[in-house]
């Protein structure tokens, strides 16, 4: 990992007691960065993602990448249930049932015209976000904002898939410029993991010494 610095970050958790310090947290209720007619189409994690993007994106914009393992799974499940019962699908829900829907809403609300990318990576979302961000930085962009979120998991799925246990989201603005920002370094790990947004928040807040994904990530003061 070549010179990757975190110039800012912020987070949101549905249960705020488990989240980052107030300085690094998005204020509730989430969705204040969106007009009401767009806000209504997103769940809480999608709204928080937009607030985080708005807080971190520079005024003149930069590439934005959003990752989620499960996406808006509550609404996905309700559509599957409708199909199983032979009921017609809600057009509004169907229109939002793509992984890049949250970025689409953000880009409409804020007239964003730079690259947007949505990722799902079966547990390797944070690794994938960093890989893609480095690609944009190496292509000449001064900064990239990444957001990793999970929505609330419906009871039907409990015990069947890894999940942080609550809706949460975390965003980072990454750059190649040091400027006394913390530096991200990667080293091999013997215990690879599939970090959730909550684990990323705990690590960024300094509560855990490293973050194990496909590699072990650590933060160093420059």
């Amino acid at each position: 990992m070549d010179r990757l610095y975190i110039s800012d970050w912020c987070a949101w958790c549905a249960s705020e007691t488990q989240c980052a310090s107030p300085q690094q947290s998005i204020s509730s209720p989430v969705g204040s960065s969106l007009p009401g007619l767009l806000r209504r189409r997103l769940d809480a994690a999608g709204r928080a993602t937009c607030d985080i993007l708005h807080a971190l994106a520079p005024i003149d914009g930069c590439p934005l990448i959003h990752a989620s393992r499960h996406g808006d799974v509550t609404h996905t499940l309700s559509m599957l249930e409708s199909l199983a019962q032979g009921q017609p699908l809600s057009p509004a829900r169907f229109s939002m049932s793509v992984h890049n829907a949250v970025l689409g809403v953000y880009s409409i609300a804020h007239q964003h015209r730079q690259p947007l990318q949505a990722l799902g990576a079966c547990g390797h979302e944070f690794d994938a976000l960093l890989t893609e961000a480095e690609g944009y930085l190496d292509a000449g962009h001064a900064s990239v904002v990444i957001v990793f979120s999970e929505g609330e998991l419906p009871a039907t799925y409990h015990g069947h898939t890894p999940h942080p246990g609550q809706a949460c989201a975390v965003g980072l603005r990454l750059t190649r410029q040091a400027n006394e920002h913390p530096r991200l370094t990667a080293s091999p790990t013997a215990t690879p993991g599939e970090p959730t947004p909550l684990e990323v928040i705990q690590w960024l807040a300094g509560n855990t010494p490293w973050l194990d994904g496909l590699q072990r990530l650590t933060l160093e003061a420059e």
Partner: protein
Amino acid sequence: MHETSQQLTLDLKRMIIEALELEDVTPDDIDAQAPLFGDGLGLDSIDALELGLELQKRYGIKLDAEAEDTRQHFASIDALRALVETRRDR
């Protein structure tokens, strides 16, 4: 026996708020004569499809999305009420 026009107007306002998830909007906020789309309430084309589905579920009214008169039926709450009063089967 069907409800009065006044009650139907209120029902349609509630239907729109509920089906379109218009948070922070109350029936009193919706002017029955004002346009629902564009400058008025600000609804979009996805909302039009959602309303079409809702009319079918609640009142058994099936509209042709391509027909020119569909646009007129969706002009305002009053236009919707006139449509439901003449075409409802439940």
